[in-house]
């Protein structure tokens, strides 16, 4: 999973809306195109970008190609953000302890 590809795929509001719709469940290209004032080929292109980025999966069902979210891909990005929050909190808690041990002359007491 490539974070760059995922970020750039999610940079487009239409593609984010498609992801939000797919979070509710599987949908066909036709169903995904409905809320947008957009041709089916245009929606298909967005779907290809999301699919190439590993964010969604498409299966074959007769003539239909239903799409769904690739949960493990999104959770990779999500994990990165959660890590950022957690890391910041853990860091600053450690910094509190470090600051408590510093004296006012600018030397680190240890």
């Amino acid at each position, binding site marked *: 999973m*490539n*974070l*760059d590809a*995922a*970020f*750039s795929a*999610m*940079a*487009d*509001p239409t593609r*984010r809306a498609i*992801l*939000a719709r797919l*979070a*509710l*469940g599987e949908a066909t290209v036709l169903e995904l195109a409905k809320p947008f004032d957009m041709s089916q080929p245009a929606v298909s292109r967005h779907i290809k970008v999301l699919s190439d980025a590993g964010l969604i999966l498409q299966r074959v069902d007769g003539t239909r190609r239903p799409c769904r*979210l690739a*949960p493990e891909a*999104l*959770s990779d*990005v*999500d994990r*990165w*953000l*959660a*890590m950022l*929050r*957690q*890391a*910041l*909190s*853990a*860091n*600053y808690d*450690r*910094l*509190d*302890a*470090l*600051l*408590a041990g*510093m004296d*006012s002359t*600018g030397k*680190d007491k240890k």
Partner: protein
Amino acid sequence: MSKLTLKTEGDTHVVVTRRFQASPEKVYRAHTEPELVKKWLLGPEGWSMPVCINDARPGGKIRYEWADAKGNGFYLTGEFISLEPFRRIVHVERMHMPDTTPDNHVETLFEPDGQGTLMTMRMTLPDAATREAMLATGMDQGMEQSYQRLEKVI
């Protein structure tokens, strides 16, 4: 109540605030002296920072390398843009995990707050799109609910 706040501002910013019970001078030094930085800027438990380069002057390089006991590692590179001792640091940074994350332009302010310090870290992502991508992945309630639904169906 958590001491850390993390919120968005405008189209491209993420703002983190945190209060410390120490003077702005101490908090600033803990951000600019490698011997101090490597003691706290470690992320989740279990990680250490074997390489901590922090050349705190305009144009000076930043390189932090983290490692855990299992041999995993990642690193961050960056450059300082400007520094006003004990008050303000401006730098740019990016993570290598090993994919490189988009450049994050960071302004960190240290303001007196009673006996302590209010630190405000303002991150600016390169464009609205990148920040929106961050939002779409978990800071947004709607998506969080979607994930919860998602977990039920997996």
